């Protein structure tokens, strides 16, 4: 039992950390862009945590509904599916605005730099990452369930690994847009 717990824990962590290392490598390749943006490091940890929490919660809710035989949960046109997608989208945008405001105020108060662009970057990045992550999360959860897997055992590390990559790509795209 202890060995089984240890094996599951280690596998899940190695998968999610590998995704996060890939995200870190993307950051390393964009050092010249990042160095021009004060406040970005204040945004990054919160943005990554938020993206992972929202996607993991979405996967858990869809999975729970599928397990409870609410078959329409797997249909993204059903009321349940649609409302879950709406809620995840609104939560991500609201949290990103908050993170952007915190990053902007902290940069201004603590470092004396006025960088309003950070607020816009947070919102654009949240929009891009939502467009990618919500359909990926929804479709993967339903696919796993329909193919006989338990999404609860797989979606956590999978969502955090993919979520980190998508979040960093979204942040870098937002920087390019700005």
């Amino acid at each position: 039992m202890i060995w089984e717990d240890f094996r599951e824990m280690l596998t899940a962590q190695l998968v999610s950390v590998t995704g996060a290392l890939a995200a870190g490598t993307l950051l390393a390749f964009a050092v010249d862009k990042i160095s021009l943006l004060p406040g970005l490091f204040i945004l990054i940890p919160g943005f990554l945590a938020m993206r992972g929490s929202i996607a993991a919660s979405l996967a858990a809710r869809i999975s729970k509904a599928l397990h409870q035989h609410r078959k329409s949960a797997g249909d993204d046109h059903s009321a349940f599916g649609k409302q879950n997608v709406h809620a995840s989208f609104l939560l991500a945008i609201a949290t990103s605005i908050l993170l952007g405001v915190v990053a902007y105020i902290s940069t201004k108060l603590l470092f004396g730099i006025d960088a309003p662009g950070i607020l816009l970057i947070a919102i654009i990045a949240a929009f891009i990452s939502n467009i990618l992550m919500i359909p990926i999360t929804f479709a993967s959860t339903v696919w796993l369930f329909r193919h006989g897997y338990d999404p609860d055992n797989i979606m956590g590390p999978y969502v955090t690994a993919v979520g980190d990559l998508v979040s960093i790509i979204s942040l870098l795209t937002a920087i390019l847009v700005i």
Partner: protein
Amino acid sequence: MAYSPIKQLHNIEQEKTTNKILRESVQVLAFSSIISAFGGIGLELVREKLLLFIPFLILVPAMNEMVGGFGAIVTSRFTTALFTKQLKRDHIWTHPFVQSLFTSTMTAAVITALYMGGVAYLLAIIKGFPFNIYLFVNVLAVSLLATIVLVTIIFLVSILGGLYVHKKGHDPDNYLIPLATGIADLGSMLVLALVLLWLF
């Protein structure tokens, strides 16, 4: 009627499931995001060093991810055991379940930390960062020490918090997982920032 995004948003907010999810999640998400942003302030203080020493920059998302992940695992396993009465509140620290949870968590954390530090340096070399044995050992040491300290703190918070929340009769998953991941985010970023200040 003309298309109105604001009206559409208003209609979405009135939806039953949407409303429930928003109501239950928004405060916890806001709280954990603000805690994580404080950790980010620590990183912003050492941004020059982070941009110069690429292996540490590559470590940032991984460190953030890993400690939070262990926080969520310990909290959910401990509270499930508590609520399903596999555990009694007396002599909690010497209970075989708690001891084996600590041993398996710490062993997995140490292996993950070494993997994380080694791969971060390897990826930095691929990016063109020179190999330096002193720096390589430092990256491994930072990854390992930060992990051991933070996983111990997270373990204590999860057990003590779990006992408290259980006594109050609340669902610990709604409070402790965001709290544990928030502490992990803040702690890991601050430890990374402090170590960079201390080393370089």
